[in-house]
């Protein structure tokens, strides 16, 4: 117990510190982009949130497969925790992306220009469905089983959605190319640091959320024992 507490402490401090450094890098260290100006600074947190969202859903897939293979409830808790965190970050990516699109294309929702934003919002819908499914199934074991299967099917559909949205957009003229790979070194460093900082934050949240889930499970078990104890 004390050992796991120490890991949590380390992660808490590490994510707090790295987020502070990330804020400094984004707002002070990174140079202002020539054509887009300060708005471009949203890019660092936007892409990092999208990355964490995507990574979280990958963890859900792994957790689902591990649960179906071994039947260990902890894996289901990890999968569910990861979906909740992933949805939060995906929502952040959609909101920041929409703000950025408004500044760049003067439209909140660039269906044609930015297929990745469309893809991320589809991810949001997929995993909202995952949570809805859990809410509508009776019985913990069955809930975990259905959720694991849906987590697998949902993740397998992601590359297909990505490709179809990509191709669908290709038939329209590309109005504006993202700056893409030619980032200035200071920008690249800031970007990479943000990715790392957000990933640390993800693991910190995952650890806390999974622990909460396990404790809730235990509390549920104790209550059940108490109830049956009183009955008998």
């Amino acid at each position, binding site marked *: 117990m004390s050992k796991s507490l120490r890991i949590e402490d380390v992660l808490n401090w590490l994510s707090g510190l790295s987020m502070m450094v990330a804020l400094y890098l984004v707002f002070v260290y990174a140079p202002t982009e020539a054509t887009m100006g300060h708005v471009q600074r949203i890019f660092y947190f936007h892409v990092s949130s999208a990355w964490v969202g995507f990574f979280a859903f990958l963890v859900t897939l792994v957790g689902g497969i591990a649960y179906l293979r071994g039947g260990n409830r902890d894996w289901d808790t990890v999968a569910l925790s990861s979906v909740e965190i992933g949805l939060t970050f995906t929502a952040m990516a959609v909101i920041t992306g929409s703000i950025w699109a408004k500044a760049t294309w003067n439209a909140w929702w660039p269906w044609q220009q930015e297929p990745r934003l469309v893809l991320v919002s*589809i991810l949001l819908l997929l995993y909202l469905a995952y949570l809805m*499914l859990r809410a*509508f199934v009776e019985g913990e074991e069955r809930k975990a089983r259905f959720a694991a*299967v849906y987590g697998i099917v949902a993740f*397998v559909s992601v590359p297909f959605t990505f490709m179809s949205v990509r191709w669908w957009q290709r038939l329209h003229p590309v109005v504006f190319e993202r700056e893409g790979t030619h980032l200035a070194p200071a920008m690249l460093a800031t970007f990479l640091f943000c990715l790392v900082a957000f990933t640390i934050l993800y693991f910190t949240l995952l650890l806390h959320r999974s622990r909460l889930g396990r404790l809730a499970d235990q509390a549920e078990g104790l209550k059940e024992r108490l109830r049956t104890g009183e009955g008998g």
Partner: protein
Amino acid sequence: MSFLNKVLAIVGKDVVAELRTKEMFSSMLVFALLVIVIFSFSFELRVENVAQVAPGILWVTFVFASTLELNRSLAMEMENGCLDGLFLAPMDRSAIYFGKMLGNLIFISAIEALMLPIFSVLFDLNLILPSLLLTIFLGTIGFAAVGTLLSAIAVNTRAREVMLPVLLFPIILPVVISATKVTGGILDGVPLADWAHWLRFLVAFDIIFLAVSYMTFDFVVQG
């Protein structure tokens, strides 16, 4: 009994049940007519060229009709404990998956075959083209492959009629996007080479989701 015979036995059972009651065909015919009337009123009064909106209308109708059919397909088995009986039968669970999947594929295709002539007449477009039929068939396999798995999940939830579309729509979105694109291309007379990649995409989707659903179906129906 070989694996194929077991699969065909399940398909045969579903087909006979439908032929006796004709429940689905009659309701689907009315459904198709109603959808077309609703779309006509909501679009046609403002759209000058029907061919521009026809692919969208066609696929939205197919998606809705498939959802209704998939819901009915497993809800039917829930009555009188039919599903438990099916699972007690001495056969592999995957035979049940492929049996129900083929049954769904046959029924959805039949519904679409019923709707296409109605669409053609009411929209004054020739929709009975070999390339379009192939596209519809590939798209329908995708619907049936994922839909059979997800409807087995949805029948075991509260609010099952709502649950299936919520689970199914985000996953079959690639099928809808690609099928609508190809349908538009065919109606516009675009040469084959320009949308062949979409057809390959549909085939890949079908194969992968058949495999994934086959592998996970066991976990859905156990216990």
